[in-house]
């Protein structure tokens, strides 16, 4: 029987930290878009970069939903491997995105953070879903 060790609240808090920064970037993306454009830019270029960043952020939120659904429904809440993996990745994401905001990184760097720290945990979460619901194996 899986135990409620410190892993469950840690995972929740790191997930939430990553989520909070992603929501914050929705409102602070102006600096980052200006950083990825040349010193003189047209409004079309701005809109293009803007829509790209908004798409990336929205997909991140969607992947978050998958992971939170798996976490709160209990599918992967007590699986220590998935929890550790998720904690590590979301921690990296939260720190990197904090740098992203404060140092005004370019928008292209967001795609790297997105791939490693949002797609990977969502992917393992989907694997957990399949393991529990399709293969009927206990997740802990």
């Amino acid at each position, binding site marked *: 029987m899986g135990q409620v060790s410190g892993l469950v*609240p840690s995972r929740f*808090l790191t997930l*939430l930290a990553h*989520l*909070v920064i992603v929501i914050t970037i929705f409102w602070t993306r102006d600096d980052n878009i200006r950083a990825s454009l040349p010193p003189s830019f047209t409004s079309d270029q701005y809109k293009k970069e803007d829509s790209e960043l908004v798409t990336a952020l929205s997909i991140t939120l969607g992947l978050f939903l998958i992971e939170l659904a798996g976490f*709160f429904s209990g599918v992967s809440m007590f699986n220590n491997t998935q929890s550790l993996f998720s904690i590590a990745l979301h921690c990296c994401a939260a720190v990197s995105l904090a740098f992203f905001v404060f140092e005004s990184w370019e928008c292209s760097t967001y795609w790297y953070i997105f791939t490693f720290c949002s797609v990977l945990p969502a992917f393992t979460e989907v694997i957990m879903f399949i393991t529990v619901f399709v293969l009927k194996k206990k997740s802990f």
Partner: protein
Amino acid sequence: MELPNQVRQRLANFSRTVFIDTNRTGPEFYGNPDNEIVSSLALQISLYFNIYFFPFWWVCNIIMLHLKYPILPDYYKFILVTVVILITLIEAIRLYLGYMGNLQEKVPELAGFWLLTLLLQSPLIFFLLFNEGLTIQPLERAVNIIFTFFLTFQIVVAFLALKKMANQLAARFHLQDFDHFDREKRKTHDSRFLSQHLEEFHPTAVE
């Protein structure tokens, strides 16, 4: 720490009027009200994570308040400090009541939790979230949105849990009457049975 008696009475009266189905005559669908657990798992999960989330919400809001204090107009300074103090105090009481009410299946505590969430916390959080005169920062928006999710989820789930709990309590109370009647009937029946057969038993025992 218990709720004071007066508060308990009022909350119990309130629960009786709001949560019990008054269009049913009796406990038709409760199999055995003594064996069924009515603590709500979803509510307990959200309370547990709310307890972990609250210190971070508090730290974020205090830091943002500290940073924007110089540029706020005077009345907003006073309002914002009051609102943060109020939310902190109410949150501590609310989470304690929710834990006690849900785990120990106590209806007045859970009703108090539900009322505090619906009538006090929600307006305060909506004020923090939607009043643009407060120069709301993006970080504040993010943590307040998450807090609002917690509150709305708890309002819905606590209402359902309270209905179930109050109905189970009413069913138990009604079935208590039937137990009482059964016991009375058995007592009179037994005493009549014994007095009828005592004369027959007595002679055989002596011989």
